[in-house]
Every structure is written in structure tokens, then in C-alpha cells.
């Protein structure tokens, strides 16, 4: 058993990581909270040296009251929801497919996983220009080949375009996790069901899907946390126009473009609360796993 000596040594070894993360969390968070109750427009002469005016909850009210707030919530929900639906459904199908025996399994797996390693700025630009450009993009060539009028994806179907790009980036993640989960499924159970004459769909809904339940929950929660804060994909494609201004992007614009720190900080606090609600569910699942 651990002695008292090793206990204090353990505490000492944990200290650097705990102190660093505590600082990383508390210092900026406190500042954001502080600014969110202040009038702070550096462009109009407000400065920290001269002191900032306390405005109570005005920034919070104005952030929600602004005409761009609800559209940004809608864009966020559409993008996060769309990507989740696509990656989870396709991820399950792909995971089942990759679990089957076929020739070249290793290579196909590599091809499917590759998008995850492409940095967000590259995948966004490649899709925007090489795939979706209305003149030279691959889609435009395809559309013309079938006699259709090419689509200006980034302006006419901007939200769908972002969903497509982000889904492409996250599909490998969902597939990999679901594949790992499927591989832990007892194959004898499946074989028994097959021998008993259970049809494919029944096997899927009664054996595979229930087994995947936990993995699907984890995919949804982790992706939601990352998807709520996607930034680069919008930054280099539409720049937040054409209805793609998500909550994250709106806050970014309030802070960086309009230099309204108080308003942006209030938005930041909303984003932090939102992320924490999702995180709470994730932590419960992960926490349960620790108790084994």
C-alpha cells in the first residue's frame, strides 16, 4: 500500500499540472466574467488604466437582444445537428462495412481515416476551391456533365457546404470509434443469430445497435463540444456571411472586428455555459468508466 511518504511525493508530482491548468482556467475566465459586466470599447477611448464603467447585465441583455443572435443560434444548431446526423449514420454504416472481411482492408481504412489528419484550414480551402467552386470545382464539372447548371455552393448553399466540409472532417472520427466498438462485439452472438435465421435488419437493430449505444453517445458528446467551437472552416470560406455566422463566430466578430469587449465577453459567458451543459453529460459517462 502507499506509504505516507509516497503520498506526499504523489501530491508534489501532480502539482505542476494542477497549478498550470488551474491558472489556465481561472485567470482568463475571471477576466471574461469581469469584462462582461463592463462597458469596454477600446476604439471609443475606454481603457483599463482609466477604469471601466460597470453596466450590470446590460451586455448580456444586448447580446441576446441583437438581431444577429437568433440567426447565429439557428446556424449553430443547423451545423452541429447536421454534422452529427451525417457522421453518426454514415459512421455506423461505414464501421459495419469496414468490419466485414474484404481484400485491402488496411488500405481502405487508411483512405477513410485520412481526412481527420488534414488541418481545418486546408480542408476548408480545398473543398471551397477544388470541389465547390462554381466554375472550376469538381462539382461544377459533374453538374455540367449531367447537363445541370453548376451551383454557387458558398453563397447559395452556404450552410449545407459548411456541413458537408465539417462532416468530411469528422466522419473518420465517428467511424473509428464505432469500428472499435463493433470489434468488441461478441461475433458468436451474431453468428448464432444468423444461424437462427434472423434477417440482416433484425440483427442490426437488436444486436449491433444496442451494443453501440455507449459509443454513439460518446461520439455525439465529444463531437458536439468540438463542433460548437468550429472556427477555421468558417473563417477561410464564408467569413461568417450567407447565414453561416455561428455563435462562436459571432462572439469572435464582436471581440475582434467590432472591438466591443464587454458585449463579446457576455457572449463568451453564454458559450461557456452552453459547452458546460454538454460537458456535464460527457463527464458522467467518462466518470462511470473510471469506477470499473
Amino acid at each position: 500500500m502507499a506509504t505516507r511518504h509516497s503520498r506526499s511525493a504523489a501530491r508534489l508530482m501532480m502539482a505542476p499540472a494542477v497549478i498550470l491548468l488551474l491558472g489556465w482556467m481561472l485567470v482568463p475566465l475571471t477576466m471574461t466574467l469581469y469584462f462582461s459586466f463592463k462597458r469596454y470599447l477600446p476604439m471609443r477611448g475606454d481603457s483599463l488604466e482609466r477604469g471601466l464603467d460597470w453596466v450590470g447585465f446590460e451586455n448580456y441583455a444586448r447580446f441576446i437582444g441583437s438581431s444577429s443572435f437568433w440567426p447565429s443560434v439557428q446556424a449553430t444548431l443547423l451545423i452541429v445537428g447536421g454534422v452529427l446526423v451525417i457522421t453518426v449514420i454514415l459512421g455506423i454504416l461505414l464501421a459495419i462495412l469496414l468490419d466485414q472481411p474484404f481484400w485491402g482492408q488496411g488500405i481502405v481504412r487508411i483512405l477513410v481515416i485520412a481526412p481527420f489528419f488534414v488541418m481545418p484550414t486546408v480542408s476548408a480551402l480545398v473543398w471551397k476551391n477544388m470541389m465547390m467552386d462554381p466554375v472550376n470545382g469538381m462539382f461544377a464539372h459533374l453538374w455540367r456533365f449531367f447537363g445541370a447548371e453548376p451551383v454557387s455552393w458558398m453563397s447559395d448553399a452556404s450552410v449545407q457546404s459548411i456541413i458537408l466540409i465539417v462532416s468530411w472532417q469528422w466522419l473518420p472520427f465517428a467511424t473509428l470509434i464505432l469500428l472499435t466498438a463493433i470489434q468488441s462485439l461478441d461475433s458468436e452472438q451474431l453468428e448464432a443469430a444468423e444461424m437462427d435465421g434472423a434477417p440482416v435488419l433484425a440483427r442490426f437493430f437488436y444486436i449491433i445497435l444496442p451494443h453501440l449505444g455507449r459509443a454513439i453517445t460518446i461520439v455525439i458528446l465529444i463531437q458536439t463540444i468540438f463542433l460548437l467551437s468550429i472556427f477555421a472552416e468558417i473563417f477561410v470560406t464564408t467569413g461568417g456571411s450567407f447565414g453561416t455566422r455561428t455563435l462562436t463566430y459571432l462572439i469572435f466578430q464582436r471581440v475582434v472586428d467590432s472591438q466591443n469587449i464587454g458585449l463579446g465577453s457576455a457572449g463568451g459567458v453564454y458559450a461557456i455555459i452552453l459547452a458546460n451543459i454538454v460537458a456535464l453529460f460527457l463527464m458522467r459517462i467518462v466518470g462511470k468508466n473510471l469506477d470499473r
Partner: protein
Amino acid sequence: MARAVSTRRKIVTTAVAWAIGLLIFFPIYWTILTSFKTEAQAINNPPLFWGFDFTLENYAVVQERSDYMRFLWNSVVIAGGSTLIGILVAVPAAWSMAFVPSRRTKDILLWMLSTKMLPAVGVLYPISLIFVQFNLLDTRIGLTLVLMLINLPIIVWMLYTYFREIPVDILEAARMDGAGLRQEILYVLTPMAIPGIASTVLLNIILAWNEAFWTLTLTAANAAPLTAFIASYSSPEGLFYAKLSAASTMAIAPILILGWFSQKQLVRGLTFGAVK
């Protein structure tokens, strides 16, 4: 036991799987292919899949015009540095939590995880303010520290799940033989921990290499890594397909290769050990 599968079914599965795999990989393939074309061939109608003049000119131009090597070096320093510091901080913490667990270990782990959930945009202004105050804006050291901090929870978690798999009996045996804490760490633990540490390093280099919020907002000319290098190609006047393709290929090639070696670790690292 391997399932017996009819050859016909295997052929169909092979065809479908390859078709889907190639479809998903297509944008990357097309980018790499286009990077070897001339600008005129890159926008040819119909698109050229073969029969074009293979040229390396785009790579030379990209390097010359936007100084690719400098961005690459920044990426290497920032991704490598943040991972190295992160490992140095995380190994002792994960070690003590895995081998000398206390009542609060679980809470500490979950709390660390929760700091990862903090939306970056919510603390963008405070961080830039701190950066200005300490002259860290657009420096490699500043970015290295931030990326180390945002990935530290993942590093601790991954190491923790790996360390927990090391059988405690071995430690007890070593203690019985009179090994002190130092020897225990040096001769018993380290050799068993190295594979886990290596996987953690690999995954975190990838995460840091591809990080695209702080690298875009906290850098300008000096410390900008490859994520920012590519973002500069988003302006319409800089739009040349073959050059964009060459720049993209150069930005993703190093990490694509590294990534393929780390598929397994990816699952464990990104699910915080919840799926193995």
C-alpha cells in the same frame, strides 16, 4: 474465430468498400494530383486525371513566394515544443494518479477534462491581453505554451489510461526486492511506460499541428505556423489552383504520414479512454 464468408460476398464487399474509401479520399487525391499540374491544366475543362505535364514548379514557387520553410519550422517548433513540455508536466501527474490513487483522483481527472471543454472564443480577449502584457503576441514561445495548456488534459488522460494498465504486482515485487522510488521509476516503470508515452506524443503532435483557432488569432508574421500559412491563400487575388494545391500538400503531408501510424491511439486519446 474468423467467420466463413462466401467468395462472392467478399468480392462485393471489396468493391463497395474500395469505392467508398476512394470517394472519401478523393479531395486529398485531387489536391495532390493538381499540385503537379501547370496553372492552365489545373483549371482545364474537362478536368485532367492523366495526360498532363508533370511539373514541380508549383512547389518551388510556393517556397520562394511565401517562404514555406519558415512556416514549417514554426509548426515543428510549436507542435513539438508544446508536446514535449506537456509530456514533462503530465508524466509525473499521471504516474502519481495511476499508482498512488487517492479519494480525489477521480475528481481531479474529471476537472482536468472539464478545462478542455472551455470554448476558446470565450477567453480570446483575456488571453490576447495577457499576451500583449507579456510580449508574447506573435511569438513561438507564447503559442507553444497555449497549445501545451489546451492539450495538457488529453495528455494526462491518455498517459493515465496507459499507466493504469501496467500491473501493480510488478511494482510490489520490485519494492520487495528493495527497489527505491527512483529505481522503481527508472528500471521498472519506464520501460513499460514508453509505448504509451510514444502514442501520446504522436497524437498530441497531430492535434497541435492542426490546431486552428489560437494559431490563427495569436500570430501575425513571425510565429505563424502552417495553418496560418494556408489561410493566407484564402484571399481571391492569391487564388491559383496548382499553387494552392502544392501549398496544401506540403502542409498536410508530414502529419498525414504520422497520422496513419496512430489510428489506435486516436480513439483512446480523443475519447479520454472511454473507448478502447
